[in-house]
């Protein structure tokens, strides 16, 4: 989130799209309600009518996987009707920038496409620059090669009629939403968007979010109270676990992971983003300070200038290597790994094409699974279709403490880092995860000390001194993450103090300032709210630098006055030469008084309407899901995203326009359960309320298939089939897609064979093993399936057990 949960109340229009906020983030709904009580409009755009829709002022349905068409139409509507915030667009975005004349877009493809590699050469996706290397601009936005005009041209094809044909949303509904949302294009109005996995779990997931970012840039909704792009993330600390670099491509603080083409620290530092524009802060220029301080936190005294601070001890990926989730399990399926940790995860139910994952687990020599309750992953070897006597995998199941049985911090979607105290003792022999990994590493190190082994340096030189009285001490790690001034031994006040000469350490620069000499900031419980906007600067702590709304200097004019005097987030005090309000997104003076552009994490300093960084194009373009109900993309001849990686053979099969799988299927969550259900299916109160897998389908489809409400049905895709109970509902309706009726079915993915015994199987046995080209997040929200009535009711015995 660029903003935070309480900030919803500052919005005039709230759009929940690609999400189901009332059911999946129930308590945050109170802030939507607070906005509505003050007259805000709440819009829900979704394939299904949910508990969120029941509370919305406007509910509009669209076919899964057509969000870019929907939003592209909104961009066109805003441009055609001149509803954009002109000052904002000219000054705070790259709309005036002149694009490389060789850049082009034709029939669904951007310039530089190589069909054999299924990839783009992005060398033409650049800006024209002057002799000083600064992008050329046309502040009138008239130049046909400027971003603004290219944007206009790109979305000129997204007419209401065309969008309606693709999305299945009636034209009148489109216009209602466009009109309501575009009303926030004036400085005194704020529009916010709340999205979740309904946007990311697509082969165009990143571009779904990008399309909305363009809308927000056009309407001047970024960096303001009540605005922003707000991902409602799925788990309590998925923000934090991402921040801490538990992904193949980033190390803590979003630094790129080292690769083989950067053998030395100097080579790595050459990747530091550059700008020649003196008015661009380009905060990423500090990358060398952060990587060196990170290396010091990894290897302590052993990291010296002479040994490149231990840079060579970090593992390196091959150039271009993608070690993300789908590739990881594909490699596991091929037998690449002998060992595997599933730490607090249940991939046997949570991964796309879970059947493939279950087979892959059987190819390991050993697996360690740490969890609070038993799971389908821990017991995959005795799952359906498995013969334990033929499964070689050695499995260790380690019981861990639950959240209230240990101390530490988590970060919510609003980037608030909140401290949790230990309330209770873990049951039996269960231990906190931190203690487990701390002890385990000590044992590994002891083995390498004793027996040597392959490249022991990183293991032997690792700084691993986070204990007090022989026990793991979470405070010591929290301090390590904040960072130290190694010359004084004191905690650094924040990341501005970090250096690239080895005199500072910092485990994660964006968390620097969270645990300082002044104490543990995440544990704060102060309730003051000086701005009156609900920022609560003394409650817990928020990265970066306790800044509650990111890019907040975009909320002021060139002189530093709030553009919306009703909700002033920041104001420049010219006499004191300082900002008043939120922690400013960099303390430079306002742009009009020799200051800098507001988007400090972008090397050009402005918001990217033209976004050259992504794999699949600088402007979002509609492509059909990999599995889709129509033969042809109604906008171009590129039916699917041209750069997605397709896994072929074995368990990876797909079906498009296959009469065997005629219905669009989507997966989701319900209030009473969470994720694969490991933390909810074992709770009697929750399982009584939502006991079994269901399949929601429309009255029309039910009629077509002869299915009655409550019937047991089979849902199948080329990858698998599961049984479910039909919920025939008016909340789902068929779509009219260019004259063709397209039906939708939906399934929750909270279940698994282990418990309860008659609960049903994971919906992920059905989902396709295909990912977004930028993030590789699987397309679990739009795929093709069949639903039919189960021929025979299951034997009474199994129903009762």
């Amino acid at each position: 989130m660029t903003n935070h949960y309480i900030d919803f109340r500052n919005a005039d229009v709230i759009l929940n799209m690609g999400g189901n906020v009332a059911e999946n983030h129930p308590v945050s709904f109170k802030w939507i309600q607070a906005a509505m009580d003050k007259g805000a409009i709440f819009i829900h755009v979704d394939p299904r009518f949910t508990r969120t829709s029941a509370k919305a002022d406007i509910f509009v349905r669209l076919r899964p996987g057509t969000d870019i068409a929907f939003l592209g139409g909104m961009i066109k509507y805003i441009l055609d009707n001149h509803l954009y915030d002109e000052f904002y667009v000219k000054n705070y975005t790259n709309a005036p920038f002149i694009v490389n004349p060789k850049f082009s877009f034709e029939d669904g493809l951007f310039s530089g496409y190589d069909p054999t590699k299924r990839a783009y050469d992005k060398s033409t996706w650049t800006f024209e620059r002057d002799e000083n290397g600064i992008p050329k601009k046309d502040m009138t936005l008239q130049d046909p090669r400027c971003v603004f005009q290219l944007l206009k041209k790109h979305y000129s094809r997204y007419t209401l009629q065309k969008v309606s044909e693709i999305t299945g949303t009636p034209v009148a509904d489109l216009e209602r939403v466009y009109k309501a949302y575009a009303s926030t294009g004036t400085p005194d109005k704020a529009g916010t968007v709340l999205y979740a996995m309904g946007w990311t779990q697509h082969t165009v997931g990143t571009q779904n979010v990008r399309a909305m970012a363009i809308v927000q840039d056009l309407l001047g909704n970024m960096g303001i109270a009540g605005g922003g792009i707000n991902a409602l993330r799925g788990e309590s600390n998925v923000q934090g676990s991402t921040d801490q670099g538990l992904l193949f491509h980033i190390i803590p603080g979003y630094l790129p992971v080292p690769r083989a083409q950067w053998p030395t620290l100097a080579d790595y530092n050459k990747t530091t983003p550059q700008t020649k524009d003196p008015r661009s802060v380009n905060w990423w220029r500090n990358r060398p300070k952060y990587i060196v301080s990170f290396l010091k936190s990894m290897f302590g005294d052993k990291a010296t200038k002479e040994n490149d601070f231990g840079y060579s001890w970090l593992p390196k990926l091959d150039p271009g290597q993608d070690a993300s989730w789908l590739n990881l399990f594909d490699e596991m399926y091929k037998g690449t790994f002998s060992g595997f940790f599933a730490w607090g995860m249940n991939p046997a139910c949570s991964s796309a094409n879970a059947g493939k994952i279950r087979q892959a687990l059987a190819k390991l020599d050993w697996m360690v699974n740490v969890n609070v309750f038993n799971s389908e992953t821990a017991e995959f070897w005795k799952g359906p279709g498995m013969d334990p006597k033929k499964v070689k995998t050695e499995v260790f199941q380690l019981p861990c403490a639950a959240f209230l049985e240990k101390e530490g911090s988590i970060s919510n979607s609003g980037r608030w880092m909140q401290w949790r105290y230990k309330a209770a003792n873990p049951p039996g022999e269960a231990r906190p995860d931190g203690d487990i990994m701390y002890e385990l590493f000590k044992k590994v190190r002891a083995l390498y000390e004793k027996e040597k082994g392959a490249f022991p340096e990183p293991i032997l030189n690792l700084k691993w001194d986070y204990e007090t009285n022989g026990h793991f001490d979470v405070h010591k790690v929290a301090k390590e993450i904040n960072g130290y001034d190694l010359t004084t031994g004191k905690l650094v006040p924040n990341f501005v103090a970090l250096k690239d000469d080895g005199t500072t350490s910092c485990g994660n620069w964006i968390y620097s300032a969270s645990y300082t000499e002044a104490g543990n900031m995440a544990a704060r419980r102060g309730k003051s709210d000086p701005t009156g906007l609900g920022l609560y600067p003394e409650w817990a702590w928020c990265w970066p630098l306790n800044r509650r709304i990111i890019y907040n200097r975009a909320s002021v004019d060139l002189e530093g006055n709030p553009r919306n005097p009703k909700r002033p987030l920041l104001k420049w005090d010219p006499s004191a030469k300082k900002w008043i309000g939120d922690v400013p997104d960099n303390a430079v003076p306002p742009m009009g008084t020799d200051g800098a552009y507001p988007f400090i994490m972008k090397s050009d300093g402005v918001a990217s309407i033209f976004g050259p960084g992504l794999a699949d194009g600088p402007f979002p373009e509609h492509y059909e899901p990999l599995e889709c109900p129509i033969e042809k993309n109604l906008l171009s001849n590129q039916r699917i995203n041209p750069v997605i990686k397709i896994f072929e053979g074995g368990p990876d099969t797909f079906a498009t326009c296959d009469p065997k799988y005629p219905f669009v299927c989507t997966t989701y969550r319900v209030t009473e359960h969470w994720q694969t259900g490991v933390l909810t299916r074992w709770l009697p109160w929750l399982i009584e309320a939502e006991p079994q897998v269901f399949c929601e389908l429309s009255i029309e489809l039910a009629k077509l298939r002869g299915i009655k409400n409550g019937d047991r049905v089979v849902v199948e895709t080329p990858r698998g089939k599961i049984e479910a109970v039909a919920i025939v509902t008016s909340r789902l309706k068929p779509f009219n897609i260019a004259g063709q009726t397209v039906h939708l079915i939906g399934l929750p993915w909270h279940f698994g064979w282990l418990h309860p015994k008659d609960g049903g199987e994971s919906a992920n046995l059905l989902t396709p093993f295909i990912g977004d080209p930028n993030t590789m997040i699987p397309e679990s929200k739009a795929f093709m399936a069949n639903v039919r009535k189960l021929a025979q009711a299951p034997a009474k015995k199994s129903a009762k057990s």
Partner: protein
Amino acid sequence: MESSLEKLKERVEQILGKRPNYKGILNFYLRVKEEQEKSRSHLHPKPLSLRKEWKDLLSQEGFSLIEKKDFPIDIEASIKLFDSLCGVAQEANPHLAKQVSMIREAVRGKRLNLEEIFSGKVKEEKVAEAVGLDQKVFTFLIYQSKKPSIEEGVEILKKELEVESWSKGDCPLCGSLPSLALLRGEGGKRYLRCSYCGFEWRVDRLFCPFCGNRDQGTLQYFFGEGEETFRMDTCEKCHQYLKTIDTRVMEMSDPELEDIATLHLDLLASQKGYQRPVPHPWNP
């Protein structure tokens, strides 16, 4: 007003059904309430003029709006009520009876001038000492006689008060310490109830209002089995306690009544070595 007295009677009955041990003191409580109720109907306190500086003092400096002595007291009504309460006390127990006869004697002998006491010219503690009265009993009777006036004052003052940001442990209205905490509302917000004027204000759930301690490790509570509505919040830093009533669990009655009816918890707290910073009004 009658109906509220009825409700109190009903609640007392409920309590006695479970804890008959409280019969004596609760009957006394009801009689006191009855007299106060009667007095309230012909109360004419002098108008309270609120000075602007007071409000500034509150919002800027964190001082309470007024002090105890600033409450306008209807002296005539208080004297009358005092007399009625003496009548009630006389019948309550031998100790009170003896004290009442001593008080009456002193009044007759002009050694005790009630008007001076209620107008704040002399302190009741001093008078009690001079006359040789049980100070606890005498201050109790004086306070209960002033109570309708004080409550009337609170009604007027609380309209002037915006205490959203008041998070301190002492009363924003009169500066006294709390005698009780109440958990209330959908989220279990904690309110402190002033020991003197009965005003209630919202504070954080987890801190000791007496010493400001916020360390969760040293803040605990205890309760009696089957009485989860009442808990005794104890602080290991200052060894004091605050009785807390969870009003989300029960139909609201008079917190003062609940405080009396849980005197056993005060006894237990005292045995555990904790102190009540302001003495229990009905067991001083």
